[in-house]
């Protein structure tokens, strides 16, 4: 049984779990964020437990349950997926618990405090591109999954956690220089998944950034490369669709998103290889 506090700016998480796989996952991906819980006198934003299944599901086809504050927001998964369950559950916490941040489904990388936001529907290839920018072009990783915007300062918050990879992208990212992958989980709801550790630089220099570019990536095998500037209004509508809580945040959410786009240039890109995508991003950002 582990009982640890994770410092994952902007939140602090307490995690209790009896699974060895979860402990291994934390040691692999969160080595410097980890402290034993005990009487630390911290403020805990999310109190999470990954628990064994109840009744016979403890032993027969064992399950892992996700509990936030002792309540179970979703159905259990097979016990072998306890570690991915923690990652998915933590994303759910960040997206659904009111914390005053506008949270969007997007990868965020930055350079010298200038952020590139890549919203994406599942399967668009944003995680692969995010990993390529991080490992090959040495961008700072803020998050591969959640853009967390503080309305009061207009800055994107770093939340450097393992990059979540699915199916074909696992082998692609495994070949990137410096990429370190964890174990593979077959037969999850999203197919085979794995995680890539963010580079040490992203974890240690976790600084906030301001949105300068928004790019909607689309990986389409066999397609001709295409890069098109789009208007801020269109970008707003498309990001709003990918935002978990803009509506719940009322006019604060609306103004925060407007503010984020005010200083941003927006693009729609389609590509059939990571190399092409990297060239496009270099052209757009000039970095």
């Amino acid at each position, binding site marked *: 049984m582990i009982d640890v506090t994770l410092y994952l700016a902007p939140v602090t998480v307490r995690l209790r779990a009896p699974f060895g796989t979860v402990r291994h996952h934390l040691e692999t991906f969160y080595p410097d964020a980890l402290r034993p819980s005990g009487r630390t006198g911290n403020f805990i934003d999310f109190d999470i437990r990954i628990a064994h299944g109840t009744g016979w599901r403890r032993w027969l086809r064992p399950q892992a349950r996700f509990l936030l*504050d002792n309540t179970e927001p979703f159905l259990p998964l097979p016990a072998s997926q306890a570690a991915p369950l923690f990652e998915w559950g933590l994303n759910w916490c960040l997206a659904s618990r009111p914390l005053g941040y506008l949270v969007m489904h997007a990868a965020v990388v930055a350079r010298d405090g200038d952020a590139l936001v890549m919203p994406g529907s599942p399967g668009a290839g944003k995680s692969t591109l995010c990993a390529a920018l991080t490992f090959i072009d040495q961008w700072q990783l803020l998050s591969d999954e959640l853009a967390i915007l503080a309305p009061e300062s207009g800055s994107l918050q770093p939340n450097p956690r393992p990059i979540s990879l699915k199916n074909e992208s696992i082998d692609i990212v495994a070949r990137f220089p410096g990429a370190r992958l964890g174990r593979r989980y077959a037969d999850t709801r999203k197919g085979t998944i794995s995680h890539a550790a963010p580079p040490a630089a992203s974890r240690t220099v976790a600084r906030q950034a301001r949105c300068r570019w928004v790019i909607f990536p689309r990986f389409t095998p066999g397609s001709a490369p295409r890069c098109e500037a789009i208007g801020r209004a269109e970008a707003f509508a498309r990001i709003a669709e990918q935002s978990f809580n803009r509506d719940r945040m009322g006019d604060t959410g609306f103004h925060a998103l407007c503010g984020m786009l005010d200083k941003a240039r927006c693009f729609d890109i389609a590509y059939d290889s990571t190399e092409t995508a990297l060239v496009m991003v270099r052209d757009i950002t000039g970095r």
Partner: protein
Amino acid sequence: MQSAACRRLVSILKTPTQACALDLAAWSELVASARAANLAGLLAERVATAGIEVPPEAARHLAAVRQLSRRQTQSVRWEVHGLQRALCRLGIPLVLLKGAAYAVSDHPVGRGRLFGDIDILVPHHALGDVELRLMVAGWASAKTSPYDQRYYRTWMHELPPMVSVRRGTVLDVHHTILPLTSRHNPDAETIIRAASALPDLPAVRIPRPEHLLIHSIVHLLHEGELHNGLRDLFDIDGLLRTGANEADFWQRVVDASRTLDVVAPVAFGLHLAAHLLDSPIPPPVLADMRNAAGGPASRLLTMLYTTAIRPENEATESPAAMLARFAIYVRAHWLRMPPHLLLRHLAHKSIARLKKDEPAVEGRA
């Protein structure tokens, strides 16, 4: 209410200045309890009103839930305007209950509160027309099984819940305040007739203060589920404090509970609020209600509610609370319908639950 965390939450909600003495770990626990009890918004309001300095980590949560409450209030008002538009042609009064009534009438109880479903009360004779007009306006029945449909339509005090096809908002259309099969038989017409109009919403009505209080009590005691028990108790506390601004409020409460045939639950609800939250109820009123109900509140029932009412994050940790909740659940169903119906209903529900469990073998998140 027997855990230290729960007692501290209650005492800080009553006397917010006590929060000055908390360290960061205590704030962490307080915010978690308040959130789990669905009272984080009330905590935020009370702490802000008292001008307490809150550490930034906790302030984030409190500010966010206040903002969510304001946003939900706005949404509820917007939905009510839509209901007014959908139903005004019928020429019937449309009475808002619970959260919707607090939000639209800007009742103090609504400040910082989070809202779930929208509850409305309409005259029984108009039910068919109301349902039809709502369907035209984009509300669809959420319960699709024939059993559930029949359960609501034959035995309950409301239509099966309706869901806005576009927005997912849930609407409960009541025609009375207790199930038709219940031991008590309140005449909802008295609530509808006495309800007051609003300036800019001609069809919409807000129940009299004593009816808001009585409905809140009856709801807490007959619902059987105590997930929001502590929040409901604070609603009751707020409703009676605000209601008491009218000079004849308490007399009206006593009279209305007689007229509505709910003396016993109201007597017990007031006793519970006085016992658990020290709600300011004049002793003669408590005595009157006690006499009318035919004796003092049951000590067993008081003990059950005292044990069962606590924030959700600790409820499942305590076997005593689970047991008390189960007893209250059974009792609520006992009050809800006569034994033969109850048996039939519970049998059906458990079979349906067993059937539903099977796909869980696949393990989905």
